[in-house]
């Protein structure tokens, strides 16, 4: 028996079904939050803002808002997917099954990334209700969103294995990802910041993600798309390596 395709598929489908069962939490809640941002920042405040780099303010914030929801939701979704079986003990079945790191990742991470793509589509759809915008490189945008979704699904998976309490599970998205995304140029262009904050802001890796996505949307960005892309791919590679290590050593999975 080589790669257990059916095993991977079973995990994938079950994880997706789990999301539909909690559709309200995983889809509706982020849509509502994003809509509120559009209303407050896009329509109310945005109408008094100058366009940034030739882009209408309300449109300018779309990539950042998308990133804000995407990072948080992807990470917590994916981390829950693997944390819950550990917490309830049902992970015994996964550990005793003929599935290895590849099947597990395709199942769990693939499902988390798929959910994130659906979520991104819904958010972008919601945005059209508030703002008139055009995506300059739609295929590039899709590719970049997929890459980010996959990377943060992997990251969430690691988080879900590392966490040994619900508290730890929630801490990373809330205390790290959300603030960094806020500060990472979601609502402004980095060069609007005074010295030295515009330089300090570049220490925030998420600034590069927001900037990269904004480039695919409007063709202009704070940092070069190549740097953003490179950084994201690097992050993906680190996550894959960590997960390979986890499976090799059984860390937090096998006693």
């Amino acid at each position, binding site marked *: 028996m080589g790669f257990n395709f059916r*095993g991977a598929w079973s995990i994938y489908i079950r994880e997706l079904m789990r999301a539909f069962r909690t559709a309200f939490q995983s889809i509706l809640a982020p849509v509502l939050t994003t809509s509120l941002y559009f209303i407050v920042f896009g329509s109310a405040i945005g109408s008094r803002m100058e366009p940034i780099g030739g882009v209408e303010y309300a449109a300018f914030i779309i990539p950042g808002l998308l990133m804000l929801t995407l990072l948080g939701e992807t990470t917590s979704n994916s981390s829950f997917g693997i944390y819950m079986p550990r917490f309830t003990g049902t992970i015994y079945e996964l550990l005793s099954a003929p599935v*290895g790191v590849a099947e597990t990742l395709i199942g769990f991470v693939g499902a988390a990334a798929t959910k994130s793509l659906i979520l991104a589509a819904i958010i972008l759809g919601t945005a059209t209700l508030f703002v008139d915008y055009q995506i300059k490189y739609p295929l590039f945008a899709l590719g970049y969103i997929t890459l980010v979704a996959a990377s943060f699904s992997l990251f969430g998976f690691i988080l879900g294995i590392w966490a040994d309490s619900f508290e730890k599970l929630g801490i990373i998205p809330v205390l790290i990802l959300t603030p960094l995304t806020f500060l990472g140029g979601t609502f402004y262009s980095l060069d609007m910041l005074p010295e030295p904050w515009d330089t300090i802001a570049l220490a925030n890796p998420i600034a590069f993600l927001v900037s990269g996505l904004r480039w695919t949307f409007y063709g202009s960005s704070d940092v070069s798309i190549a740097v953003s892309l490179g950084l994201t791919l690097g992050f993906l590679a680190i996550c894959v390596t960590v997960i390979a290590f986890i499976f090799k050593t059984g860390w937090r999975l*096998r006693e």
Partner: protein
Amino acid sequence: MSEPILTIEGLSKVYKGGVRALDNVDLSIRKGEIFALLGPNGAGKTTLIGAVCGLVRPTTGRITAFGHDLAKDWRQARAQIGLVPQELSTDMFETVLRAVSYSRGLFGHAPDKARIEEILRSLSLWEKRDSQIRELSGGMKRRVLIAKALAHEPELLFLDEPTAGVDVELRKGMWEQISGLKERGVTIILTTHYIEEAEEMADRVGIIRGGQILMVDDKDAMMERLGTTEALIELAEAMSELPPEIAAFPVELRDGGRELCYRGGDGSGSGKAEVAALTMALTRAGIEYTGIDIHDSSLEDIFVSLLGSEDAPEEAA
């Protein structure tokens, strides 16, 4: 019946805290047999099962199942092994049917509705197939776990205390099902605290304590060696000493002579016959009694008598 399907050699497991849960265990399981692993709480039964099923990383030792070294060819080996864990861990919000179908897929099998239906029917779960697992009783949940373990038609099945928390009637039913599996050629390894259970089902019995296998033997041989029957006979009137008619029986007076305690026989049921003979002897001697309480020894009793009370099953540490 003698070809080994599972071979364990020099298996040890030291947990992170330093607990040596398994200590150089050697064990060989024959194809098609029912093997009962008996031992007190904390003996290492679950750890042993975990080591074979991939839940526990052995510290040292080698495990071979179906000719595959588990350290290398775990995929092939695991595909043929089923596990019913001791803990009732189930996906509470999943329905029975979906949970069982998922297990089949996870182990790499194509969906097979008829097969799943057959498994659910045989465990009296078919009526409950669309219920969420959280709505089921404890005994039903345990049967769902069994159904999940059977969904991929394993050749080797581990049952870690399959009858814990299951009522007497269902327990009997479960014994029948386990025998049915054996008839289909499935090799079964189960753990239990009840010697009656091993007596009812097992071909061979292994006794484990402190991470060491103390003995492995055919059930019949072991039952004769370890089993006892205990009977408490309440006497209508207290006696000060044993009357000669019953002096030949392994009995003693207790509770100020108001109670006669019999302890004897073996696992083959000879104890019950002897108690019957004892009661007739009492009647012949004109000794009246008001009640009889008779039971076969549990494994715990045997451990107490065999190993002394310090080594008796530990309470939760």
